[in-house]
C-alpha cells in the first residue's frame, strides 16, 4: 500500500522544490502524527428500515402471525443463532460476521417514539428527544466540538454525496465539508502544481502555503493512483450508489485526508407497498457495500482504525399493511461493522409474540447508549458533552 509519504517523496513537485528536504520532513511527520486517529463512518438508512425483515426473529411465533405476505422463507434465511437470522440478501453482512467484523444491536430506539420521518430522523441525528432541541446541532457535531485532537485546517466531518449536510454533522464550531466525487480532489492544473514548491518567498505565511501546496498535490496524486484500476485493492466494490460513496470514503481515508467522521446515506427504505423486492435490493446493496468497504480498508492496513455505524430513523410496523408493505414503526436494529467491533448480536431482541395486531415493540436499547459507547470508547470524546446526559455504555467494541 502506498502511503502519503511515499507520494511526497515520489511526487514530481518535489523534484522541482529548491528547499524540499526540510519541507518534506515536516509534512511527512505531520502525516505520521495523525496515523493513529480512529475514524467513524456513519451510514444513514433513510426512510425507516424494516428491522424485522433485516434481522429476522424467525423463531418468534409473532413473526409468523404478523407477517404473512412478507414472511421471508425460512430455508433461505442466514441464521445468526437459534432464533435470529439475517435477510437472505445480506450474505455480505454474514461474511463480515464470520470474519468477526459485524455487530448487531437489537431493539434500538427511544421512549414515546415518533413515527414521523423528519421528527424521528431529527431525534436520531440530534440525540435529543425534545423537539424544541431538534434544530440546533447534531450528536456528531457536538461530539466533534468536544473532541480533543481534531486536526487544524481540515473539516471535522465530511458528507460524501449530494444531499444537504445532515443535522448529525451540524456543529457550533467544527466545520463539515461535503464531497460529491473524487474529481473534486484531483488536480487538473499541471502547470500550477509544478510551481507548488517554487514561490521564492520565505516568510512564515508563504512557507505555510507552500508546505500545504506540496501536501495538496501529493494527496491529489495519491488519490489519482487510488482511483485508477491498478491502484485498487483486491476488494472490488459493487456498482451501486452506496458502494461508490463508501469507496470514495475509503480513498479519502487512505489518502489521510484527516477528517474524523465520514457520512453517507442510502435512501429508499420507506417501503409502504410491494416491499419484498425493494427491501431485498436495498439490503443486498448495503451488505455488499459494507463488505467491500471493510475488506478494502483491512487490505490497506487501516481496518483497525475505522468503525462503521448504520442506523435508520425507525423500524417498521410488525403488522404488514394491505399493500404488501409496512408502515412506520418503532425500534430497530443498528449495525456496526469493521475490525474494532465485538462481533455478534447485542441487546435484547423485542418479543413479537405477545403483541396485539396494532402494537409495536418497545425499544430495549436507548440509541443514545449506542452513541455514548462510540463516543467514549471509539472516538475518545466525553459523551455527556454531546448527549447532555450520561447513558450506559455497551460492550460493542473489542
Amino acid at each position, binding site marked *: 500500500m502506498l502511503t502519503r509519504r511515499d507520494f511526497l517523496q515520489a511526487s514530481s513537485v518535489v523534484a*522541482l522544490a*529548491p528547499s524540499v528536504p526540510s519541507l518534506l520532513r515536516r509534512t511527512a511527520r505531520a502525516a505520521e502524527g495523525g496515523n493513529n486517529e480512529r475514524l467513524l463512518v456513519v451510514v444513514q438508512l433513510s426512510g425507516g428500515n424494516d428491522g424485522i425483515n433485516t434481522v429476522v426473529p424467525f423463531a418468534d411465533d409473532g413473526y409468523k402471525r404478523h407477517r404473512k405476505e412478507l414472511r421471508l422463507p425460512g430455508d433461505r434465511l442466514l441464521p445468526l443463532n437459534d432464533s435470529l437470522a439475517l435477510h437472505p440478501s445480506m450474505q455480505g453482512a454474514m461474511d463480515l460476521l464470520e470474519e468477526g467484523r459485524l455487530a448487531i444491536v437489537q431493539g434500538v430506539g427511544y421512549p414515546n417514539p415518533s413515527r414521523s420521518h423528519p421528527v424521528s430522523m431529527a431525534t436520531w441525528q440530534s440525540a435529543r428527544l425534545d423537539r*424544541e432541541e431538534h*434544530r*440546533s446541532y447534531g450528536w456528531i457535531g457536538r461530539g466533534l466540538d468536544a473532541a480533543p485532537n481534531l486536526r*487544524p*485546517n*481540515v473539516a471535522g466531518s465530511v458528507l460524501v454525496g449530494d444531499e*444537504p*449536510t445532515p443535522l448529525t454533522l*451540524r*456543529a*457550533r*464550531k*467544527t*466545520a*463539515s*465539508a461535503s*464531497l460529491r466525487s473524487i474529481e*473534486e*480532489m*484531483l*488536480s*487538473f*492544473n499541471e*502547470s*500550477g*502544481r*509544478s*510551481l*507548488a514548491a*517554487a*514561490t*521564492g*518567498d520565505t*516568510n512564515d*505565511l*508563504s512557507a*505555510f*502555503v*507552500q508546505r*500545504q*501546496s506540496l*501536501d*495538496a*498535490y501529493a*494527496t*491529489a496524486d495519491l488519490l489519482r493512483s487510488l482511483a485508477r484500476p491498478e491502484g485498487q485493492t483486491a476488494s472490488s466494490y459493487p456498482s451501486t450508489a452506496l458502494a461508490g460513496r463508501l469507496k470514495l470514503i475509503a480513498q479519502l481515508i487512505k489518502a489521510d*485526508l484527516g477528517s474524523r467522521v465520514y457520512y453517507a446515506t442510502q435512501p429508499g427504505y420507506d417501503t409502504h407497498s410491494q416491499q419484498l423486492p425493494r427491501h431485498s435490493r436495498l439490503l443486498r446493496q448495503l451488505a455488499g457495500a459494507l463488505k467491500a468497504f471493510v475488506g478494502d480498508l483491512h487490505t490497506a492496513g487501516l481496518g483497525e482504525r475505522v468503525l462503521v455505524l448504520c442506523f435508520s430513523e425507525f423500524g417498521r410496523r410488525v403488522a404488514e399493511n394491505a399493500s404488501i408493505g409496512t408502515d412506520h414503526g418503532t425500534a430497530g436494529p443498528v449495525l456496526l461493522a469493521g475490525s474494532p467491533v465485538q462481533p455478534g448480536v447485542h441487546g435484547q431482541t423485542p418479543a413479537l409474540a405477545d403483541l396485539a395486531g396494532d402494537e409495536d415493540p418497545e425499544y430495549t436499547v436507548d440509541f443514545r447508549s449506542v452513541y455514548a459507547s462510540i463516543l467514549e470508547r471509539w472516538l475518545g470524546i466525553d459523551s455527556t458533552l454531546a448527549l447532555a446526559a450520561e447513558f450506559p455504555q455497551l460492550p460493542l467494541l473489542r
Partner: protein
Amino acid sequence: MNVDPDTNWQRWQPTADEPWDLRRVWHLWRRAGFGATWGELQRDLWDGVDASVDRMLTGESRSDGIPDGFDEMADVIGGAAVAARHPERLKAWWLYRMLFSPDPLGERLALMWHNHFATSNAKVDDVVLMHQQNEIFRAHGRSTFDELLPRVVKHPALLVWLDAEANRKDHPNENLARELMELFTLGVGNYSESDIKEAARALTGWTVVNGQFREFSQYHDEGTKTILGHMGNTAGDDLLDILLSHPATARRIAWRICDAFMGEDAVSAVALDELAEGLHNRGLDLGWAIETVLRSRAFFAEANIGNRVLGPIEFTIGAVRALELSDPPPSTFLLAEQVSRLGQAPFYPPNVFGWDGGRTWINARSLVGRGNLAVALVEGRLRSPEHPFDALDLARRHKVPDNLEALCGFFLQLLTGAGADAQFADSIIAVATAEADADDRVARRMVSAILGSPRAQIG
C-alpha cells in the same frame, strides 16, 4: 511585527521607503475591493492614495466592467431568485453584485457582516429571509452599529437560525442570548453564564409569525432580571441597549473590522483598544472606523502587505476582475458553485462562528480546487458557450511587450501585486513553455500556473 501603537491609525502618507506604488494600489484593492483591472490599478497609481481611498469609500472605485443599469439589473436578478425561492440563484445574485457593483467595498462589508452574524440557509431554509438579511448588511454596513444590530437581531432570518422564535417564558432558549453576547456584541470573557440565562429571559416573547418579527407580551417573562449589573424588567430592546453601550462591544466591532481588512499579526492589542475607544466615543460609527483603517499607516505598513490568505471569494472575484473576463463573463451560477466547493458558500457559513478564515482556508482540497478553478477560468469553461481566455490579447491591450519575461512580469503584478525574483519568473516561464505551443496557449498556461501557485493565495 506590530506597528507603533501611537501612530497606528494616523493617516498614511507615502514616503521614499513606503511609496504609493503598484503593490500598495493592489493591496488596497484586494483588501477593500475584490481586486482591480490593470486600468484601475494604473489610474489609482496616478491619482494617489487619497483619491483612491476616497473613491473606495464613496462606492466609485470601479471604472471597468460595470454594466449599464447595474442596480436595476441586480434587483431583477435578486427578485427572480427570491420569487423562485432558489438558493443557488440567490448565491449567483450576490456573486453578480460582487463582480459588477460599482461599490466593491459595500459588498465586502456585506460579506463581513454576513460572517459576523453568520446565518446559514441550511437551517433558515428561506430565500426570502436570507435575501432580506443580506440587504440589511448592505444598507447599514457602514452606518452605526446601533443602526445595524437591532435590524439584524430582530429579523426573522437570525431568529429562526438561533431558535429564538421558540423562546418563551415557560421554555427559555439560550441560543440567541449566548451568541448575541459571545459573537455579535461583547465577545467571550465579558459576561457570565448567569448573564446569558437572564438575557434569554429578557428575549422571551420575540418570535416570528408569517416571516415577520413579532413581540408577544404573553410569552415575555415579566420578572426582574439582572444582566451585566443592570437590574429590572429588562425586555429585548433594553438588552440590546445595554449591549450597545458596553465598551466590550466596541472592542469586538473594532476586532471585526480589523479582521476584515488587516492581515496576520498586523494589529496589536493596544491598537485594537485605540480603535475600540474611537468607536465607543463616536457612537459605534462604523463608517468612521472603516475609513480610519483604510487610510491608516497600519493598513499600508510593510508588515500588513501580503500577510493574509485570500478567501475563496476574494481569490475568485479577484482573478475574474483582474483578467477582465467580461466578454462574456463567467456564469455567476458556476462561480457560486466554485466558491462553495472551495469552502465559502455564500448564505451557508459553516456555523454561527462564521468562516474561520486566514490559514484555515488552506488545505489539500482547497488548494487543488483553486488550481483547477484557475484552469477552468483560463480555458473559459465557466462561460457559456465555452470560450478560452485570450491572455495574450489582454497583455497587448495593456501595451505589454511581446516577450516571455515581460508577459510573466505583467501577469505576476496583475495577479499577485508584485513582480518576482528571477528564479520564480524562470520557473513560471519554464512551466508555461514546457510544451512547444502557440503563443496564446503559453500565455494562458502562464496565468493558470501563477493562479495555482502558493504566491497567488496570499494578498
